[in-house]
């Protein structure tokens, strides 16, 4: 996808002024937050399971090479093939080659963030192969030529009436008089149209939530059942997954599944959790004839062994963005790349370079809610702070910010100077602010005051007030 992270500020301003988007975003907290809370509260072992999830992921990452080897061996033993892709380009070439070998003209796909990361759809189209997204949300945004704005609810930024207009445009062969006012009729129409597409597909591409080293299985979770139809009807099933999806055993996958759906949608289990291993067996009556797994690195191995390794524990539940006040205000597209929200602010600089993503780690109020709800306890605020530090070291911040911080640091190291300076400025600002005692605009702080007023200081500094109160208290006691 076209990278727009460098213009994060402009993206955000546009998002704030986008009325339909703001209408859609208002619903984010209503759905996800309460449901997650209720599901977590209903399971007494939930917090202990989160600790287990951390342990499992850490162990898997520490032994990642060995578990990947074990996984590949089992996939091959079950009659499947593993492909190793160091970067996006390699992954795209592998998928295209598989499609060409089968003479595929159309491929069905179930939601995969990795597919977004490697920009697979555009690439397939350029090569004459039609990708068909089957997850309802993904289907909607494919019709709109957009990208997902949320990792589990890709069309969360789209309103119902927009979907209706898209369907009328895209499904021109259907009766123009049909009633689509009920969301259920939209769902039924998508189901009907996509059933036909499934029939035409020569290949089915899915992501994976987990890869199990013990058995060479991919664990694929959906609520719609679209991933199951994708692999069942596609004749050739291709799983594309990044290397950190590996877990050692089926039991480990079970521990993670117990926190995944609860954190994501507040369900105890998603509707379909499917553990697939190899192609259909000789005696099976249906299922794909071929099974391929594409293992993608694309910058992840460079995070191993660094302070950012912890971000590789992510199981893509979406809780951090659902609970993020910044995400709730600007939505996912403003982040400008594949992964939005707090995890996006940490991953994007790691995967595409901090030069292009320098703004993202600053998109935080440091309220800490993301870390509180993250099922694998990724210290997201701390990791964002690490990026800010690196960014400062590398002089990637704008000059006024660097001068300002430099001036502040100079004074802060000299307490007498600092006190003298603030005692001059505080009464001055207080007088300037007038009766309202608030600034609605300030030079050099336009970005800050555009969205809110700055309360003026009360005329005396904290240190002055503190000294006065202490002496007053001393007198009262005496």
């Amino acid at each position, binding site marked *: 996808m076209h990278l727009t992270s460098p213009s994060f500020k402009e993206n955000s301003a546009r998002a704030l002024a986008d009325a339909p988007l703001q209408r859609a975003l208002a619903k984010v907290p209503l759905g996800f937050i309460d449901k997650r809370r209720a599901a977590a509260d209903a399971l007494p072992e939930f917090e202990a399971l989160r600790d287990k999830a951390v342990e499992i992921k850490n162990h898997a990452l520490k032994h990642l*090479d060995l578990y990947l080897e074990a996984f590949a061996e089992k996939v091959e033993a079950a009659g499947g093939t593993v492909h190793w892709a160091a970067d996006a380009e390699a992954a795209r070439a592998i998928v295209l080659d598989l499609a060409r070998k089968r003479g595929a003209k159309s491929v069905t796909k179930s939601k995969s963030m990795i597919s977004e990361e490697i920009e697979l759809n555009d690439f397939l189209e350029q090569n004459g192969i039609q990708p068909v997204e089957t997850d309802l949300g993904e289907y909607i945004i494919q019709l709109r030529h957009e990208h997902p704005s949320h990792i589990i*609810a890709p069309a969360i930024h789209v309103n119902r009436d927009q979907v209706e207009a898209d369907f009328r445009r895209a499904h021109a062969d259907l009766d123009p008089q049909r009633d689509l006012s009920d969301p259920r009729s939209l769902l039924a129409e998508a189901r009907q149209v996509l059933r036909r597409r499934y029939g035409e597909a020569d290949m089915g591409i899915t992501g994976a939530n987990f890869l199990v080293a013990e058995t060479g299985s991919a664990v694929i979770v959906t609520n719609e059942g679209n991933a199951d139809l994708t692999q069942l009807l596609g004749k050739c099933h291709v799983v594309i997954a990044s290397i950190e999806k590996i877990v050692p055993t089926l039991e480990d996958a079970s521990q993670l599944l117990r926190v995944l759906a609860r954190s994501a949608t507040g369900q105890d289990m998603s509707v379909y959790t499917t553990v697939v291993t190899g192609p259909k067996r000789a005696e099976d009556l249906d299922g794909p004839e071929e099974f391929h797994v594409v293992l993608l690195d694309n910058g992840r191995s460079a995070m191993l062994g660094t302070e950012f390794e912890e971000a590789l524990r992510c199981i893509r539940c979406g809780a951090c963005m659902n609970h993020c006040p910044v995400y709730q205000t600007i939505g996912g597209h403003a982040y400008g790349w594949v992964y939005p929200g707090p995890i996006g602010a940490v991953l994007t600089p790691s995967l595409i370079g901090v030069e292009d993503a320098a703004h993202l780690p600053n998109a935080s109020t440091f309220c800490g809610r993301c870390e509180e709800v993250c099922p694998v306890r990724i210290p997201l605020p701390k990791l964002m702070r690490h990026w800010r530090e690196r960014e400062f070291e590398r002089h990637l911040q704008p000059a006024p910010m660097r001068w300002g911080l430099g001036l502040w640091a100079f004074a802060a190291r000299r307490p007498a100077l600092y006190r003298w300076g603030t005692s001059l400025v505080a009464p001055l600002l207080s007088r300037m602010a007038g009766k309202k005692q608030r600034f609605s605009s300030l030079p050099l702080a336009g970005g800050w005051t555009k969205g809110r007023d700055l309360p003026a200081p009360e005329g005396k500094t904290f240190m002055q007030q503190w000294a006065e109160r202490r002496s007053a208290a001393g007198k009262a006691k005496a």
Partner: protein
Amino acid sequence: MATSPRETMLARIRQAAAGGVSQAERRKAVAARLAEHPKGIVPARGQIDREGRVALFTEMAGRAGARVQRIATYDALPGAVADWLRAANLPAEVIMSGDPRLAAAPFETTALSIRNGASDGSDLTGLSHAEGAIAESGTLVVLSGPDNPNSLNYLPDNHLVALSADDVEGAMEPFWQRLRMHYGEGAMPRSVNLITGPSRSADIEQTLLIGAHGPRELVVFLIG
């Protein structure tokens, strides 16, 4: 000599992940975990007796939108299926898995028209047999295999599932153990389908709608 992408990737990962620990030690840790598959935390909720598990499964599956109907024996299954179809105003036609327990049930005593095999998508109602169920979350465990084509679970609008009450376990873990016993360590059927309620989507304005790509109705006949 050029190395393969596999070797290059693995070497890079090994170097970053190992953190100074010897390769022998790391191999030992991995082999041990794969052999022992430690269970971790299994919620107390499902660790109860048979009747408790059946009751919990019924409650949890119901919450997920499935209908659970308990019948005494396999002999009562054909009648229960026919009754359900009639009440739902559906044609008396079913595509059925070849599971021996279903094959032995007296379907000839009903007016149902039964077909065996995989579904091509034109069937309104499918009937499969579950390997078991998970009480903790109200989840059915359905294995693919020559007797249970996977298409029966996903293509028909109405998915009917026969489940023996003896096969209701508290949690997911006993099934992993069962699969190891049946297929051997590290081997699996093509697909293990864990199904919790009928298919759904909340992709339009976060409104939950039942009946996305998969079945709109999930009906469990709990036997025994």
